[in-house]
């Protein structure tokens, strides 16, 4: 019995250390962003907001932020539409080639971003369509759609398969049933998919770096500053980026978990 207690406690401490490791860079970025030292270390310097002031007074930062918002909102909407259609098809239909359909729907995130970036750059350049904001939106939609599909598919799992046939029997057409039964039922997951895909697009840098040309988004700007030198401004910009993506991911998760059916109602 004593052995068990020792084991349990060492595992508990170990797991805590793992979580500290995972969250250390996020916490460090926050702390360093308010720290006066150019090269932060222990002991910390004094409290300052100069890095934020410097970053936010730079018009390039605001331009990039605006582009990031446009790109992530557009790709989130497109990806969620595509993801919803794919999820609904998977939920409702059996057909020849469905396995291939699902592989195509879920594959993009498993291809290394740098490879997809190169391929997209070549493909879009052939149509003179690279180097624009729309190029980034197109590519991000490809990357985000599988996440939207997964989130919405999980919700459709919870829908009674007799619900749609019931509406048809009562005389509703398939389109009406979609509008008044399926869409309301999946609404929380659609909202969650929008948030999650917006976060994915907002943080993506490799593809954006290759195809955005001069229309840099925030992560591309960070990447380019990073290649230069250690610049504490990044901590300020980075902390702001963290806040946006953490908020989006938390909202998405709360929406997904929120209406989980209670076990006894099954």
């Amino acid at each position, binding site marked *: 019995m004593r052995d068990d207690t020792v084991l349990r406690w060492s595992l508990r401490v170990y*797991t805590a250390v793992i979580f500290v490791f995972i969250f250390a*860079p*996020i916490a460090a970025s926050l702390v360093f962003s308010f720290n006066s030292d150019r090269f932060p270390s222990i002991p910390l310097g004094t409290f300052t907001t100069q890095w934020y002031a410097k970053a936010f007074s730079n018009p390039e930062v605001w331009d990039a932020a605006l582009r990031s918002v446009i790109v992530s909102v557009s790709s989130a909407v497109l990806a969620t539409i595509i*993801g919803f259609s794919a999820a609904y098809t998977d939920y409702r239909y059996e057909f020849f080639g469905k396995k291939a359909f699902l592989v195509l729907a879920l594959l993009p995130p498993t291809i290394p971003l740098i490879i997809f970036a190169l391929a997209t750059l070549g493909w879009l350049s052939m149509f003179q369509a690279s180097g624009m904001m729309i190029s980034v939106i197109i590519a991000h939609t490809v990357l985000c759609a599988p996440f939207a599909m997964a989130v919405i598919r999980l919700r459709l799992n919870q829908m009674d398969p007799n619900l749609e046939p019931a509406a048809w029997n009562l005389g509703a057409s398939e389109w009406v049933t979609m509008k008044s039964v399926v869409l309301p039922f999946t609404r929380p997951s659609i909202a969650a998919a929008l948030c999650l895909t917006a976060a994915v697009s907002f943080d993506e840098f490799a593809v954006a770096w290759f195809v955005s040309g001069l229309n840099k988004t925030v992560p591309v700007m960070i990447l380019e500053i990073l290649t230069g030198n250690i610049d504490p401004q990044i901590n300020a910009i980075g902390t702001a980026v963290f806040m946006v*993506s*953490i908020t989006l*991911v*938390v909202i998405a*998760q709360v929406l997904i978990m929120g209406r989980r059916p209670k076990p006894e109602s099954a």
Partner: protein
Amino acid sequence: MKSLARKTDLYAIAWRLPMLVWQGLFFIGPLVFMVAMSFFLVKNYRMEPAFQFSNWEKVLGRGFFWDSYFLTLWLAVLATCVTSLVAFPASYFLAFKVKDTVRRWAVFFLIIPFFTSYLVRIFAWQVILAQQGVINAGLSFIGLGPFTMLNTKFGTMIGYLTLCLPLAVILQTFSLAQIDKRLVEAAHNLGCGRFRSVFTVVVPLAKTGLVVAAVFCFILSFGDFVAPYYLGGSKPPTLSIMIIDTSKSGQQWPRAAVIAIMMIVTLLTVAFAAIGYAYRKRR
């Protein structure tokens, strides 16, 4: 039902098309084009359609490429093993030793970093691991160091861990939590020690999920360029860094495409072999 099937055609097609069209045009299209591109020629910094094997000969004929290939493979295998081993005790704890609510919250918190700017997290590590950084300053209080951690394999591994660890713990925890706990207790009651039961009962039962987690670690670290570049010092380059150097500075997109295709072939081979192994029936 038959008459229904006929009527639903238009409706059904309407829901199939968005994904097929978009991913066909902007996912399959680029990848197929990349294969074609690897046979193109570059003249005066402009790419011209052609069907020449010269890019393949130039890339595969260089020892430099193969050095980088095996370095990348080795780093990815190392990252996969390190991440899987580091993650396992934590996953084991979350799967067997805590209440459902705690596990759900743990997964909730692990999902956040997976979707949160990897780039900024790597920058934070750059500052933390620096010669005068937080860790070396802390170590100097107890009279150790300073250790060089940036621009080393150790730095690269920290980066890979940052990338893969949250996902690895999530996937491992899910697969371990699905194990029938009575089987573990049975082994225990029959006199099998805690540690022995982990290796003879728990790991074999969760094999599929553990391998899937490892495959994701491999894919992520094999393709990542940020960790080897910003924490590993970029020299010697990994394949992903080579793709950037070749395509960004040299405008040699066709040669970069050759490297990319070699990477995809490697990834597919490893993934299929591993998944085949994971789903093989135990005798």
